[in-house]
């Protein structure tokens, strides 16, 4: 049990990215988690932040019906034509 004052919600929220990256040093991590133990609002904030990162990644990830890595034939021809036109005459 420590009598040290808790870090504030503002400090905890500032540290969230480092906490999730695992780059918080051990003592800061302990203080971060001690605050979480007494602050449901910060627990909710942390969880919603984590969820936001996952939702952002999922929103832009290709879906099964998205065009695959094949290159449309017309596109290959169009790019080749543009590259040939750009080529300086030798």
């Amino acid at each position, binding site marked *: 049990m420590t009598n040290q004052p808790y870090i504030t919600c503002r400090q905890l929220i500032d540290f969230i990215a480092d906490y999730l990256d695992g780059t918080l040093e051990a003592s800061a991590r302990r203080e971060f988690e001690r605050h979480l133990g007494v602050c449901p609002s910060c627990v909710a904030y942390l969880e919603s932040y984590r969820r936001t990162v996952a939702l952002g990644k999922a929103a832009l990830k290709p879906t099964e019906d998205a065009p695959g890595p094949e*290159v449309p034939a017309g596109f290959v021809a169009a790019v*080749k034509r543009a590259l040939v036109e750009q080529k300086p005459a030798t």
Partner: protein
Amino acid sequence: MSGTLPSVEATPDGAVEGLVARLRRGDEAAYEELVRLTGGRLLAVARRMLGGEDDAQDAVQETYLSAIKSLDRFDERSQMSTWLHRICVNACLMRLRTRRRRPERSMDDLLPQFVEDGHQRTPTRAWKPEASAGIEAEELRALVREKIEELPAAYREVLMLRDIEELDTEQTAEMLGLTPAAVKTRLHRARQALRTLLEPTFAGGRE
């Protein structure tokens, strides 16, 4: 992750590297091979960043034109696919910046507010797993994309490069001309702002 760019890592780089000398000679068949080998991955990047297929194809075409034009600056110790990926991300960023946009929202309104003693001004409500249960997966993805679009451009770019393209902090900093510390700060703020924009959907009724 460091050094590699996942969006193109599956490209058969050996085959691509063998093309460099031929590309430098202006070999037209080599142009075609380059597009066949790397185009799919670059199109995927551009589709993620720009959304529409036409815009994505234009950005990738621009990527090849710019790459071939500056081929003498390509350092053969690096990977051609990595180099192309960077050019492509830059081409997409330029397009995003020139799109006509509505006035940007103030970041101050999207970041958490605190009272003097450092407590949150309004306690955060827990997000309910069931809040999004009735939303189809594709509808949910569209809603999140719409909210990402609402972020001020300087923050949206960092979010896209770090969380979506999975570039590391240093790569993102170099690409955007920022310090690594500024990238970390902007990424954190962008995620916080996106969280605020998503909150009405997940912490209560839908907007």
